[in-house]
């Protein structure tokens, strides 16, 4: 969840010393298990190295880290690469004159990790590069995941979405109504022929211009949609009963919104798999980067219990849904600029 004031997204760049290869190093260090996505990237890198390094079959290996990877991950990556290369018929040696040298640099770009292998033999230098997903690293604990998070995109539009809800259609048994709250109106959509169609929209009068950081929330059970200076009320299952009016904003409400104090960054869900309640939390980046939702078993967020679910932009709102087992998520797609309404659900097993 994006908190205001917006903090710059700072990443610590950890620079490690060079790891000189020794034959017994794998015994000396305990490597972290690396995610399957990284294994695939290393497999590709090893194949590229093998194709480029021939006819050399032996070389020294130096690894340096200029990315935000931690020491455990670096050790794990190094060991995996050595295993991959050994499997391809190469052997590692200490740095010797005349031998080919392999320099692996663990770097990162604006998007992902970038792993660069430089193969030097005499004056010649060849470079091969692969990229690997970066967002996984913050959730190393999720590797022993027992839950799966799933995202279902419900609705997208160019106009800002503050909140949304799915409610039963009171006029058509078995059907649903999509309620979308915007800064200046609330819209009701019917689901017909595999698509949502606008049924009714109601303007929300404001005593003053809509503020840039306006927030709002729908409570379908109570039949209300509340903004700082406006409220809509009625039976949301019967949109024709809903009316909206302007209300005086509480003193200091604007400032509180600016400082993010009413913006929540997590949602508590009922027990799904283990019997323990579940906490969904967003990432901590600013409004310019992609975001994710991660699941934790406790409020301290010490132990992720699922692979994070990625979003193509910042998450703007995260609320537990009425069933207590899913969450409503409003996000913005940085590529399209559209606001997206999604339901995030949890299922048991990997």
């Amino acid at each position, binding site marked *: 969840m994006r908190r*205001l*004031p*917006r903090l*710059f997204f700072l990443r610590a760049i950890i620079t490690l010393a060079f790891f000189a290869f020794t034959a017994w190093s794998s015994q000396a260090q305990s490597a972290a298990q690396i995610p399957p996505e990284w294994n695939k990237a290393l497999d590709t890198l090893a194949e590229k190295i093998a194709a480029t390094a021939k006819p050399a079959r032996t070389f020294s290996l130096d690894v340096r880290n*200029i*990315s935000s990877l931690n020491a455990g991950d670096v050790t794990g990556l190094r060991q995996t690469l050595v295993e991959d290369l050994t499997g391809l018929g190469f052997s590692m040696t200490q740095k010797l004159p005349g031998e080919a040298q392999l320099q692996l*640099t663990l*770097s*990162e*770009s*604006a*998007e*992902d*990790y*970038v792993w*660069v292998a*430089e193969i030097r033999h005499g004056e010649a230098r060849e*470079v*091969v*590069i*692969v*990229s690997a997903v970066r967002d996984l690293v913050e959730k190393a604990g999720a590797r022993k995941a027992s839950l799966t998070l799933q995202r279902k995109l419900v609705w997208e539009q160019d*106009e*800002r979405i503050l909140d949304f809800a799915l409610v039963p259609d009171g006029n058509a048994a078995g059907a649903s109504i999509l309620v979308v709250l915007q*800064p200046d109106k609330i819209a009701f959509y019917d689901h017909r022929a595999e698509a949502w169609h606008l049924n009714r929209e109601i303007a929300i009068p404001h005593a003053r*211009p*809509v*503020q*840039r*950081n*306006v927030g709002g929330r729908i409570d379908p059970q109570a039949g209300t949609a509340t903004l700082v200076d406006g409220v809509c009320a009625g039976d949301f299952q019967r949109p024709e009963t809903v009316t909206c009016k302007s209300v005086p904003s509480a003193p200091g409400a604007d400032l509180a919104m*600016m400082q993010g104090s009413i913006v929540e960054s997590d949602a508590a869900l009922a027990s799904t798999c283990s019997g323990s309640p579940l906490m969904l939390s967003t990432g901590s980046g*600013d*409004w*310019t980067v992609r975001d994710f939702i991660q699941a934790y078993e406790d409020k301290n967020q010490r132990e992720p219990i699922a692979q994070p679910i990625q979003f193509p932009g910042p998450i703007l709102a995260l609320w537990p849904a009425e069933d207590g087992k899913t969450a409503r998520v409003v996000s913005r797609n940085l590529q399209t600029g559209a606001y997206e309404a999604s339901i995030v659900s949890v299922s048991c097993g990997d």
Partner: protein
Amino acid sequence: MEIGAIIHSLDPAVAAANPEEAGAKGELDALLYDRRSENGDFVGTAGSGPFRLSAWEAGKSAVFAANEDYREGRPFVDSIEIQMGRSAHDRVLDLELNKADFAQIPAELARQAADRGVRVSASRPNELLALVFLTGRGTTENVRVREAIARSINRAAIVNFILQKEGEPAGGLLPQWSSGTAFLFSTEADARGAKEIWAQVSPSPKLVLGYDSADTLEQSVAERIVVDAKEAGISLVSRAISASEKANAHGGSEGPTPHSEAIHADARLVRLRMPSPLPSVSLAAFIDRLGPLAGINGSPLPKSASPEDVYDSERSIINGGSVVPLVWLPQVYGLSARVRDWKQPAAGEGWPLADVWLDSTTDVH
């Protein structure tokens, strides 16, 4: 509330002749227009963005008022008062004296401004200053000439002394934070190598390095390059390119890329601002801009956005020798003490002045 801002001129003719003015105009347009087209041009009507133009005095001042109906919500500040034609030193002084709440500061003045108590916010380096050998010049057709000059340049000295360490040496066309592969390009000076290569050039030509007459940073860097070249025995002089010469090169149009034949120099300095944090997007934009100047129209665009393809494309241009990256510059902004919620814009983003608010409890005036 009011926010006083820099800014120079909104006159398109002035803006076209001065990169700094053009940059400022683009930033202001971003406050007035809601959307850009795919090619980056502003579309729709002025005033559809977070602000509307409410007062205008040509060449002197303007006032942007908050757009009450802006679809993203009304800006926090009521208006932005813009003072035009302020020099960089005047802008720093305005900030120091609390006469302005916001101003863009040249990177080379950032340290000085901070030392004088100005609140400074610097982006990641996203503007490349490069030396470009202009296409069609017989003097620089010889690859050894280009290589000798490139090797002679001491980028570290430019960063440390001219930029006061507010920047980074550049070896590639993309910064390390964006591509992740900039470390593969050397930024080291090699005066001995330059001398040896220059000795192989016969007859050795006399070369002219052009710089923008309105850009004091370019002038300082050009003069430093001349000193480095002379140490390697290379005959190189610097020459200011006037606004009228640039206008002729533009052929009367307002396009950003002049015809290189109209510039009376063998090489010139060029500033390239990243339009996006994404390396493939920025590299494609740079190739588009440099193509007519350096004759690299045939240079391959990255086959894909993969780091390897972007690096291959970048390396092919650097190895061609027509473009010599020099330094990466950050965007530096000075802010008054009462500005709150300032977020440094990412590469390609406009000034987020619609998001800032002013703390009325901090009296600066």
